[in-house]
């Protein structure tokens, strides 16, 4: 007796479609390994999206997941399947009608998509360095096996670039221009030179902190050379450190600064603006925080909302894959856990997004 091709779910009443983990249904796995996996096979790796202001990062991640699922499940309908059954019937010619079993292929609907549901019900997408709701900018997402690269990126401790827009004359409770107003002040005395001086002071103090948290013995020759080239940064937990800060545009009451930092949160950047205001003997709030670079993902790599679909994301993953591999190899490569001898994420390269801004190299401060 042949067993039927249909797998029985006898005694497995507790098995359900899971939402949290891998959610390819038991039959979907069989189907996904055939046609659908063509869409899923290329969906492993890192890519960056541009998070618009006003959206929570989780919402962005869920929207991207929905759009990817739409693309993956939109394949062509599978061919009608058959299963083998042994049917009893009279066979033979003439008078002798012997009952025998004949193997026949009969159509089966058990794996039809209308019976099983879509092949893929959720995808595993992870988020790299998060952005809060009011901030915008490059948000790195990892899908499938790329999620382990997210951990590698975190361990590489690369720097991030932000453009922060500040507004002089106000102080609010959450350092944001939509918060509750605490204080108002005049700002006529503020000039560009004063601002540049303050920013240089900040950068200098953070430079000392960089060296301190990187736990390097500066008495060695190697460490001295690295310090000269400006490559020292902490490779473990540390408070927010600003590696470079510069004013790009100054038109009172508004000013625009570019910050390159690591281990930061956007709230700390807003507090930084507030403190700059205090140093200038006035007050300031932050009106926009925008991340322009996260490690090696720049604004050019970030996908806008209209491009959050399967094909664009697959292309973005393919385009970013070699660069990701190279950078992580250099950052984490030989000697995981020892101090770096390589370049910490190219702060001032020509690949930086704001080439029109005339950035100085970080060694010259």
């Amino acid at each position, binding site marked *: 007796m042949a067993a039927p091709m249909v797998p*029985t779910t006898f005694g497995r009443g*507790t098995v359900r479609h899971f939402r949290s983990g891998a959610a390819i249904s038991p039959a979907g796995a069989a189907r996904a390994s055939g046609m659908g996996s063509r869409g899923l096979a290329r969906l492993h790796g890192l890519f960056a999206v541009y998070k618009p202001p006003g959206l929570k990062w989780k919402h962005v991640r869920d929207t991207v997941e929905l759009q990817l699922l739409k693309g993956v499940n939109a394949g062509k309908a599978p061919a009608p399947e058959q299963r083998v059954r042994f049917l009893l019937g009279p066979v033979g010619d003439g008078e002798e009608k*012997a009952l025998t079993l004949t193997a026949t292929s009969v159509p089966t609907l058990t794996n039809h998509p*209308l019976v099983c549901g879509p092949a893929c019900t959720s995808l595993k997408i992870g988020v790299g360095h998060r952005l809060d709701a009011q901030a915008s900018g490059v948000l790195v997402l990892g899908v499938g096996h790329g999620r382990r690269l997210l951990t590698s990126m975190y361990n590489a401790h690369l720097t991030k670039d932000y453009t922060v827009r500040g507004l002089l004359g106000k102080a609010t409770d959450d350092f944001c221009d939509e918060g509750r107003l605490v204080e108002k002040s005049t700002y006529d005395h503020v000039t560009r030179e004063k601002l540049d001086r303050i920013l240089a002071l900040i950068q200098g103090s953070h430079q000392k902190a960089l060296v301190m948290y990187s736990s390097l013995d500066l008495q060695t020759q190697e460490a001295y050379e690295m310090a000269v080239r400006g490559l020292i940064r902490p490779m473990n937990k540390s408070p927010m450190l600003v590696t470079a800060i510069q004013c790009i545009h100054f038109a009172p009451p508004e000013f625009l600064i570019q910050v390159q930092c690591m281990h930061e949160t956007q709230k700390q950047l807003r507090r930084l603006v507030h403190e700059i205001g205090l140093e200038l003997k006035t007050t300031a709030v932050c009106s926009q925080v925008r991340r322009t670079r996260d490690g090696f993902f720049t604004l050019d790599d970030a996908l806008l909302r209209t491009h959050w679909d399967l094909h664009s994301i697959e292309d973005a993953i393919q385009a970013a894959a070699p660069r990701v591999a190279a950078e992580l190899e250099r950052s984490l490569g030989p000697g995981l856990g020892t101090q770096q001898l390589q370049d910490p994420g190219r702060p001032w390269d020509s690949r930086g997004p704001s080439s029109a801004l005339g950035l100085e190299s970080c060694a010259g401060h």
Partner: protein
Amino acid sequence: MALSAPQIPRWFNSVKLSSFIIATQLRKHFPRPGKTLLHGFSAQPQMSSDNYFLQWGFKTYRTSSLWNSSQSTNSSRQEIGSAQGTLLPSMNEQTQKTENIPSFDSELSLEALDDLPPVSPLQLVSEEEAIQIIADPPLPPDTYTLRDYVDHSETLQKLVLLGVDLSKIEKHPDAANLLLRLDFEKDIKQILMFLKDLGIEDNQLGTYLTKNYAIFSEDLENLKTRVAYLQSKNFSKAHIAQMVRNAPFLLSFSVERLDNRLGFFQKELELSVKKTRDLVVRLPRLLTGSLEPVKENMKVYRLELGFKRNEIQHMITKVPKMLTANKRKLTETFDYVHNVMSIPHHLIVRFPQVFNTRLFKVKERHLFLTYLGRAQYDPVKPNYISLDKLVSVPDEIFCEEIAKASVQDFEKFLKTL
């Protein structure tokens, strides 16, 4: 007792988690060829007052005419969560002519089994008899999906071929139960014919039935009465078909309820009969949805946003979806359009489509136009941009004709926000 090899008694006393579908007894009208074993069936022993006792039949092993033993197992199963547990009859193949309709008997009525001669498993069986032993695995007695039963049920197969999405229906605990109990020829066919007469096409039947599978439990006479009522209110046949297609639950509402709803809209919106009719045809889910959001939204328009009655009527006849829109989104959109973009009420009334678009779209496009210096929404001045051109056109046309810039510029601008 000595039972033959194909007999597999099973006991299932395990406790199941979450929702599961429990198989129950077969329908009584299954013909049973000459069995005397059913008499013990109706006397179900009760273990406790709050347990359900469910019995199900399995596809039995059929042997030749020598011994007509039919196997059945039964067990008691505790139903967990009365809201979730449902009952499903086990299915039998009705296409196989050599199959025996399974019968079952109570485990405790053993006198039937005494009629059978005791058979040893080592007894030799002739070739014809051996061929006729059917040893397919039995249907699972309870399951959480209809996949296990679809190949054994003509009803389910025909529904899938029509395009009904069973995976969505089986999520509702009573629905699968209902569908399996129905017979295609008797119950389902009449309703399908009725729907086709109404004007729903073959390829639309699938989506309709996926949403409103409960129509099979409705009485055909009631459905006809409701359609007659709608026709008496001067809805044309095509309109009724369109309404039923867009609001699948419409025919499940009684005549009184439909009457109340129509009356409510006519009174609340103070529109003429013809305009109410057009409104309902365009958005029939007004009749099937809840009325509270509509009342809320009317208050929001009048009191919070400050529109006059005739303005609200005009906007609603143009964009009926405004009646069921989310209150928070409405106020946020209005706040941005009126306070930030400085567009007065009379202009918003002329283009109510702005309430139907996502706020981020309005914001992005307005900011882009401001950046280009083209944000001019006053019809008196030159270079006027109307609101519907702002929101209703796709990105390419917006960039080319209204902003007079390229799509790449728009994307670069979006990345600076």
